[in-house]
């Protein structure tokens, strides 16, 4: 450490004070553009609805960790919405629902860290996700007559994510992502992305279920596919996230105040 300077220390404020919840607008715009650009890359066939979903689904949680909940929701939501029109092949049946699920993912990821004054944000979020999941299960079992076991298997990714989000695993993943150990950082990114992508998936699949009322015959083939897809989202989050986060730490760019890394 060098010797302390003789001049008067000044308060340093973020760039031109144009920031949202501590995330510079420039960062939000750039990451929204990244999310939109990644919409061009199809990732896997969307079996139930046709088309395919974009690789960007693996980075919405990362965007939330980089920008915090509000910036993350904005960048993910705007990027996904723009991407749905720029690349309709990955836009999903209803672009607004795609954008909503991306925004929810960005927000939930940003809210994982127990920051000052936001320590309990996970509680209403868990309530929201639980309500979405219960609504889907109730609709499937009570209205459409699908066996509960089938619905539980169909929504495995969703309810496992709710559990991982509600339990202390949420803060454990945050600690790993904020730590220096590269292995734990990658693991935290993988499991964190699994959790958030599962919640984001729920935010879309619940309203979609009310529209499409998928029968049990469609749900059963999806049992292995949905978890596999979510694992791939986790892998994307871990691979891209580890590179981005170690790079950001190395170059020392201003860190948004609510960021988790």
């Amino acid at each position, binding site marked *: 450490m060098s010797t302390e300077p003789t*001049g008067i220390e000044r308060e340093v404020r973020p760039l031109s004070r144009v920031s949202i919840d501590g995330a510079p607008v420039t960062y939000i715009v750039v990451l929204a553009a990244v999310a939109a650009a990644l919409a061009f890359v199809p990732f896997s066939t969307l079996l139930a609805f046709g088309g395919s979903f974009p690789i960007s689904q693996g980075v919405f949680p990362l965007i939330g960790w980089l920008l915090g909940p509000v910036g993350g929701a904005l960048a993910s939501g705007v990027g996904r919405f723009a991407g749905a029109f720029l690349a309709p092949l990955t836009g999903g049946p209803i672009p607004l629902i795609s954008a909503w699920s991306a925004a929810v993912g960005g927000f939930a990821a940003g809210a994982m860290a127990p920051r000052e004054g936001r320590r309990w944000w996970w509680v209403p979020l868990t309530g929201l996700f639980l309500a979405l999941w219960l609504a889907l299960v109730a609709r499937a079992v009570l209205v459409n007559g699908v066996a509960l076991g089938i619905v539980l298997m169909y929504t495995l990714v969703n309810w496992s994510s709710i559990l991982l989000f509600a339990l202390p695993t949420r803060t454990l993943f945050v600690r790993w992502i904020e730590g220096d150990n590269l292995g734990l950082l990658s693991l935290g990114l993988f499991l964190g992305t699994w959790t958030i992508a599962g919640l984001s998936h729920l935010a879309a699949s619940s309203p979609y279920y009310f529209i499409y009322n998928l029968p049990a015959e469609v749900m059963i083939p999806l049992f292995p596919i949905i978890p596999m897809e979510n694992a791939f989202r986790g892998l994307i989050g871990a691979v891209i996230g580890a590179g981005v986060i170690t790079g950001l730490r190395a170059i020392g760019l201003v860190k948004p105040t609510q960021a988790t890394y």
Partner: protein
Amino acid sequence: MSEPLAVVDNVSYQYPHAERFALTDLSLTVGRGEFVGLIGPTGAGKTTLCLAFNGIVPQFYGGRFFGYVRVAGLDTLESPVSALARHVGQVLQDPEIQLIATSVENEVAFALENIGLPRAQMRERIAWALDAVRLSGTESRHPSELSGGQKQRLAIAAGLAMRPNLLVLDEPTAQLDPVGAQEVFATVHELNRELGIAILLASHAAEELAEYADRLVLLAEGRIVTQGTTDEVYSQVDLLRQHHLRPPQVATTFYLIGGGRPDGRIPVRLDDGLRAFERLNGNLCPQPPDLPPPVSHPDPPLLSVKDLHHTYPDGTQALKGVSLDIHPGEYVLIAGQNGAGKSTLIRHFLHLLEPTAGVVRVGGEDASARPTSALARRVGYVAQNPDSQLFSRTVGEEVAFALHHLGYAEDEVERRVVENLDALGLLPERERHPFALPKGDRARVVIAAILALEPEAVIFDEPTTGQDYQGAHHILEISRRLHQMGKTIVVITHHLYLMPGYAERVIVMGRGTILLDAPIRQAFHDLETLGATYLTPPQAVILAQALARHAPGSGADAYPLLTPEEVAACVVGGEG
């Protein structure tokens, strides 16, 4: 000094996560209409200081900031960057990264639109700014169609349109060829003299700064070491060397001779130096120096092209019938203006480009029939921008990357990684992120990764771009070591003054053809051919030719000297 325009008052700054301060207790004043040159080794804090004038430091980067910077009365911590931009224009090193619009006119209009200037005034300002940088007539062209020098002048015009009082330029010529650099310096000089815009220009271009700047500030480790007129600063050769800086060659020459001007001072500009030679008439060594003959290489060529043509898909004819043999163990310099075809030529050796016509051979084999991965084992290629070749998370992984992909055993990979990192002084940095290292070190990481493949030839494409004098020599020393190990070295550079002592043979290219292929002493003194491809010979060469003119009965090529040391050795006694 003229009325102060920008005042840096006891400023210290520390980047986030940085251990040391980038600037420490720094005070500086730039007067209205002044042209201040900022010099210093890499890491001295020049870029940080440049960014402090428009508030980017610290408003964008954060960190700890002490003291005050005021420009036109505005405190750079209290005023938003958008307000400061009306007073301070900023031009960065790389022209590519600062142009964003789809036409020249839109590029200049961008900032004006952001401050809501009425349309009529905007049009007037665009015309004025483009005229000031001599880009009138290019309004509707896409910026990517411009040359490097034109792009940098466009960046200047974009800043100029805001009618700033101060133009800050951070290494604006580092990425340009000599013509582009000359264009930029001439434009900046004109803006300073005719419009009275104050200039703060950070650069390693010693000869140009000596020519144009009013005052120089030498920065090292974030502190001002000395400041004064260009004569005062550049004549302190020992001090400059102590800080790994290069004075103009004319200054070094007369420093070694001991004096030169009637007042006993060292000349720092070429015209002063040539006048000083007139006064030295009679003190010249009577015989041309005994110089070693060019080295010959009898082995069959390692790299060879015959009647090579290459035409890009847009119709640009980059190579027009080039024939060339490079033998094992040669050290070859390829020089020429941007667009001469240098990079196009060497990319053929790695099969990165397919010949339109002609034959390319590597070690006697047809390169077009070999995959790039196979050729990369024989020919290492260090690209101009090292950053474009870095993608791993740690320095060690970067060096190991190709080895893993080529199927080497783990212990062999480890051996080569350790050996090459150690050879390049990077072993302590093995676990660091490549982008956490300074640019010079990043270039060394790329070199280490290439050397790990143990190639027979190494091609360095503009390896000294963006490096300070020490960094440039460090890289060239690596090339010399490799050459001494028997490897074939090809270097592409515009910086001819760096190459004596390294290159043996020079290939001068222009417009897709070879204009000259000769030993370095002959090539550097062929001013006509160098001029044809807009290359500037080192000042020592010009001084040597002046020496020859003054030596009784000798021709212009009687003294094929290349360095200040050689020229000074030919002057007997001197005036000092």
